[in-house]
């Protein structure tokens, strides 16, 4: 073939550029493969295992493809055998029904086990008590409430290193998705539901998170900083906010809900039960014969772990 040669050059060149980019200092930016917490680490391992498993079939098949296409091209004086009517072989076909079945079966076992192991609402094993952060996706910013500390922040998440964080995630906006790639996979933020996601940072350092699901005009500005610090530093930070930052009032929250983009900020306190109110505001229409107060009681009760993905009082079967 005459044409392809030049283009093959082009391909080689572009692949070279590509490799160069990958190898020159970009690798640490591949953050999903550079995890900083147990969940993200487990997920990275899964990616690598499944890739290797698939490659067991795929690489030989790619090589086989190249060999077959090369060897059986029609060329004058070609000596390769030609059997135009050979179209069936039970033995061969059993082999290639068998190989994918074996690989997929292996992968299936791994997947199911890790699906249960990594269920996002499952508490992490740790010697310390987890802290809770209530996450609300707003247009176009994130509100983080620390109910145990009594403080709140916007677009800034500070967490103590080595402590499991129990995120409770909802939205007072179109559906979004809460994602901190270096700590672990994402979880949707949906109105009327409080989703649970456990993450933990094993190292100190600065990471970032984002809103991964499209929510409109300034959706691309929903990045937030994640700062993992030592427990002392975290406590200092909390007390500093408690003494220096303004109060988040209910009116203040209503302003936050209005569409806008914001820089990071913090609040020394927030209205009690704000998160539960945000959730039940939308879920209340689902209640069947339950009063608003019942639902508030339920959602603030301690029995959180059974409620992932569903709002208490919201019975999907109706």
């Amino acid at each position: 073939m005459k044409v392809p040669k030049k283009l093959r050059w082009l391909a080689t060149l572009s692949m070279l550029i590509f490799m160069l980019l990958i190898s020159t200092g970009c690798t640490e930016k591949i953050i999903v493969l550079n995890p900083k917490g147990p969940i993200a680490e487990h997920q990275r391992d899964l990616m690598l295992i499944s890739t290797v498993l698939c490659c067991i079939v795929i690489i030989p098949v790619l090589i086989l493809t190249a060999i077959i296409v090369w060897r059986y091209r029609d060329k004058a004086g070609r000596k390769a055998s030609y059997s135009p009517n050979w179209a069936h072989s039970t033995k061969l076909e059993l082999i290639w029904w068998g190989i994918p079945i074996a690989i997929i079966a292996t992968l299936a076992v791994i997947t199911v086990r890790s699906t249960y192991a990594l269920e996002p609402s499952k508490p992490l094993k740790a010697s310390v008590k987890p802290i809770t952060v209530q996450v609300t996706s707003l247009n176009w910013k994130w509100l983080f409430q620390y109910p145990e500390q009594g403080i709140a922040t916007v677009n800034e998440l500070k967490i103590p290193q080595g402590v499991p964080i129990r995120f409770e995630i909802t939205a007072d906006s179109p559906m979004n998705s809460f994602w901190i790639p270096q700590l672990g996979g994402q979880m949707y933020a949906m109105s009327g539901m409080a989703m649970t996601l456990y993450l933990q940072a094993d190292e100190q350092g600065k990471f970032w998170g984002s809103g991964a699901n499209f929510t409109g005009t300034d959706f691309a500005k929903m990045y937030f900083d994640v700062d993992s610090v030592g427990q002392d530093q975290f406590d200092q930070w909390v007390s500093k906010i408690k003494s220096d930052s303004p109060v988040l009032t209910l009116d203040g929250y209503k302003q936050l809900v209005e569409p806008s983009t914001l820089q990071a900020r913090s609040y020394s306190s927030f209205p009690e039960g704000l998160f539960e109110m945000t959730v039940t505001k939308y879920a209340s229409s689902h209640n069947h014969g339950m009063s608003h107060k019942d639902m508030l009681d339920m959602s603030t009760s301690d029995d959180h772990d059974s409620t992932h993905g569903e709002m208490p009082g919201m019975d999907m079967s109706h």
Partner: protein
Amino acid sequence: MLEHIKSFASGFFVTGDPMIYGADVSILLTILAVLFTLTYFKKWRWLWKEWLTSVDHKKIGIMYILSAFLMLFRGGVDALLMRAQLAMPNSNLLQPDHYNEIFTTHGVIMILFMAMPFMFGLFNVIVPLQIGARDVAFPFLNSLSFWLFFAGAMLFNLSFVIGGSPDAGWLAYPPYSELMYNPGVGQDFYIWGIQISGIGSLMTGINFIATILKMRAPGIKLMKMPLFPWSVLSSCIAIIFSFPILTATLALLFLDRYAGAHFFTLDGGGNPMMYINLIWMWGHPEVYIIVLPAFGIFSEIVSTFSRKKLFGYHSMVYAMMIISILSFLVWAHHFFTMGSGADVNSFFALTTMLIAIPTGVKVFNWLFTMFRGRITVRTPMLWTIGFIPCFIVGGLTGVLLSVAPADFQFHNSYFLIAHFHQVIIGGVVFGYFAGLYYWWPKMFGFTLNEHIGKWAFWFWNIGFYVCFMPQYVLGLMGMTRRVVSYSWDKGWWPLNLVSTIGAGLMGIAFLFQAWQIFHGIKHYRKNRDTTGDPWNGRTLEWSIPSPAPHYNFAVVPQVSELDDWWEEKQRREHNPYVPPAKEIIEPIHMPKNSGIPILMAGFWFMAGFGFVFHWLWLTVPGLAGVAICMLAHSFNDDSDYYIPIEEIKETEAAIRKVTTS
């Protein structure tokens, strides 16, 4: 009064962006040019009689493919605009709202108004010819399907200049697509554009199932049917079970927006999750609907150009049928991250992985069709060979995505974007192009220039890898889909730039294809396909002249085995002295052309436009018109005729004269 008109127009027409004004002017000029040409050459009557009212499956197929190319152009421009925007960090080329509209229309157009009509076009042109039929089972319905598709596509595209485009993504997830967050008319254009064309798709599904099951020439048992009609059958089965779900879902969304219902709203007891489940119950089968026929095309091509029987025919048939059924059991893998719990996620992860098995088998069978064959690498085969590695890698990343806990990291990222583009471009688009190049001589009676075709292929193929391989890495770098811009500190710039270059290469590839077609038309006398069998084909469509006469087969063929035409050629070669069986020509029963489909689609368009703008004065007459068209057709007994023997003989003689001259 003037003020009144002004204020109406400023809301009605899309204004503000110089790029849109530029597009407005070019659209207007194109329309004027087309109208002028038709009038100048006095082609109106010809256009109406020969094309717009035609019920001939071959002409309908060509109109489908032509529309698909127009839509490919528009969707491609959308893609290039997006890539241009992302080529640099903090880019201001497009405003966020404009960008949101562009990725939405890109997705909708490429899947529903490019891939679907391209596929239906190939169904139409080839299926009847391959099964020895003279038309589809319901020719009138076929024409109606096309015009409904066309009306829907035009309604959707109209949002570009009137009212504003939808901007909620190609699947329009609520609550963002509800009135509360999306009060403009764009979303209503989306609903009605898809609804109207969706009815057409459903009818095509029914039509081809009936055609394949009932119209096969004597001797074509199901297990002696070529692979392409099999793939069409499996795809159409998925269509008839999934498209009603789409219609119902969009109807509910419409009621939310139009009548204040609360199916998917946040308040009043609505539940957006319900929409997401429903839309993917259609959406996932949909991607198999478009890829299965591509599998059929590759099977035909790989066998023809390896000059060898297709390996594992039975496996291939079972594999496609399994895929068609399994495609309905995987929808929740699109939202592992919505907290369905480990039980549900495990189930859908497993069903998703299962699909990899029959798909893998198909790849092995294609490879072993080539094994011990004699491969000639003409353009259709080139696309097929390009497809295999591309699809293998796309399949690999698909399996990675199906590992539910890992998907929490892949979801919504560019890794996912790269994956589905790889299977859709590498599988569907390469497949349809392969099919188009393969059957082009049969459709138009002349061959295309191979040299330009190879340039087009290599630009597409290399452009594809340059564009999408970096996107896998970008996904792992945390880049999420649908972001309009990104900052320098993320480190995403170099790979995005490479990706944009790749998109540009694919843009150039499209120009090569356009040039190839113009070149072909210009030199068509020189490249006429006089044999009717330019590739040394194996199936029935190659046994008749190119292009096929409007009745396809002067005498309905008697088929005795798979690849019947190939076997027939072998028999003739071995026994040149045995003359072909004496053929007795009989009058042929054919359907009459009808203007009702295009009129009815026009009325649907009116009704849809009325719904979009809440103009009952337009909706009501539109729907009334639809009803009147239905009645008119019901009472029309003059729907078919017989071609007399004399005319058949004349036509055949004329074809022979051309082919021997």
